[in-house]
């Protein structure tokens, strides 16, 4: 808060630049991921997948397929179903995109830049309760799904949305519980401080609390309604779930929300369990002094985080084409009967171990 006018101006401009970069990054994710989601299974099943669409004679592995798909989606006719709750029907895609983007603002994308006589943090919203902020905002994602299903005035939509929202609410609990041990271990709710605490390779969250990582990984798949927990859009039973009645750009907005929240959770998993922007066995922060350029450390740190997040994004697809879909009762019993008790035990054991270390 105690900023001079100059510092304020610099921070203001820096925030705008950071915002433009992050928003641009997030908007590129769905097109690329749709392409990956078709090429990777093709690879796994020894097919070719979309490999034709390119610019003039350069095919670039069919990457332009996504561009063609996007243009097609946007220019399709928009159909609003009869008897839909118009206002809510139009608002629902916004409700599903907004939380995903807001969470992305709190991820630390790299080490601080010390330049222009001030410190520029590489996350857009730097709060000391970064963890709680992320949970608070991600708990709002349920509204998009619930309202979309209800407002469409279609029984498949409503059933799909009820399934999806019940699943999201149920798995929010193990997701939150899996991260309590991490907060206990590092003693802070600030995501950037957690990353800084993981400077040593063997201090990464995944080594200090492997059970937490397992719970987080499972809950991460369920939170984003991805396979093997994609019951909300089990096409054999529910047509397409909550977005059955959506067409054109609104349908694309749901895609955007889903892929961005996948990416954000991937970033969070890398940040909390895999050292965020830290490179193993190497101190990134020293790079500025070593090379003499300001911002080199930020760049390398950022690329490191993106590589880690890319691994998780790839894992999403890998799992989708490996494990068959769960039944709904299996999903609920896994969440409530196994993951929540395991999470509770994990919290208690971690607390006892930490207390034992502190008082010994």
């Amino acid at each position: 808060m105690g900023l001079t006018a100059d510092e304020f101006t610099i921070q203001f401009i820096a925030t705008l630049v950071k915002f433009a970069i992050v928003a641009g990054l997030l908007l590129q994710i769905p097109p690329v991921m749709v392409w990956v989601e078709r090429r990777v299974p093709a690879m796994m099943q020894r097919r070719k997948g979309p490999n034709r669409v390119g610019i003039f004679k350069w095919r670039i592995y069919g990457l332009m397929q996504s561009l063609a798909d996007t243009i097609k989606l946007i220019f399709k006719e928009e159909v609003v179903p009869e008897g839909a709750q118009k206002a809510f029907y139009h608002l629902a895609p916004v409700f599903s995109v907004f939380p995903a983007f807001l969470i992305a603002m709190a991820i630390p994308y790299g080490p601080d830049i010390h330049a222009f006589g001030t410190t520029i943090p590489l996350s857009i919203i730097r709060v000391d309760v970064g963890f709680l902020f992320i949970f608070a905002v991600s708990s709002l994602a349920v509204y998009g799904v619930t309202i979309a299903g209800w407002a469409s005035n279609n029984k498949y939509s409503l059933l799909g949305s009820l399934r999806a929202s019940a699943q999201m609410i149920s798995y929010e609990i193990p997701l939150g519980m899996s991260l309590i041990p991490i907060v206990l271990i590092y003693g802070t709710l600030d995501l950037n401080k957690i990353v800084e605490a993981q400077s040593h390779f063997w201090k990464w969250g995944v080594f200090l609390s492997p059970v937490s990582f397992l719970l987080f990984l499972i809950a991460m798949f369920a939170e984003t309604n991805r396979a093997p927990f994609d019951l909300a859009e089990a096409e054999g039973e529910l047509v397409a779930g909550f977005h059955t009645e959506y067409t054109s750009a609104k349908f694309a907005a749901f895609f955007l929300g889903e892929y961005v929240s996948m990416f954000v959770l991937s970033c969070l998993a890398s940040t909390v369990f895999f050292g965020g922007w830290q490179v193993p066995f190497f101190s990134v922060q020293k790079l500025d002094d070593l090379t003499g350029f300001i911002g080199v450390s930020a760049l390398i740190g950022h690329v490191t985080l993106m590589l880690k997040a890319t691994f998780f994004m790839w894992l999403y697809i890998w799992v989708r084409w490996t494990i068959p879909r769960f039944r709904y009762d299996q999903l609920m019993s896994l969440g409530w009967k196994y993951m929540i008790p395991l999470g509770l035990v994990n919290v208690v054991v971690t607390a006892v171990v930490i207390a034992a270390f502190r008082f010994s």
Partner: protein
Amino acid sequence: MSDFSLLMTHGVFHLFAALITLCSVLVVMSKHPVKSAVFLVVDLFLLAGLYATLDSHFVAAIQVLVYAGAIVVLFLFVIMLLNLQPEQLRGLKFSAVEAGTLVISLVGFLITVVATFKGDQTGLGDGSLDPVAIEAAGGNTYVVAMKLLTNYIWPFELASVLILMAIVAAVVIAKKDKKKTSAPIS
């Protein structure tokens, strides 16, 4: 703090306050129950924004997490599953005696709580809770936790009894209504 950032803080406060008032009025005025619920979410979210401008990030995050993220979702579920229409709600009233009993018991409970803890030092007003002092004392979350789990442990626990009372009262009122008219099956 520079004049400009002070101006920003004030501007944000007044903007949020105006929006909160508007949304609160809309919660009560909306004919459709789902609209009321959605405005309530927006209202609670903006209220969290107000807490954030006061540098109480912990309270802001908890506000969104608990109220906007969990409780109103359940409201919305109930409204959608019962598929309440504006007409059906018009007949929903309870008598003056019941309402009076409810209000008196709740107010009485609050007075008891306040009377019990009136003599206790609040820690407010002596400058120990301004943003700079909090930052020096170990951050927002730490200070809130220390206050909540030491000085205010009894009010904190009693508040949960108050909420339980409200839940039981709501169930009693809802049950009594069901006996008179059979539930509509749509």
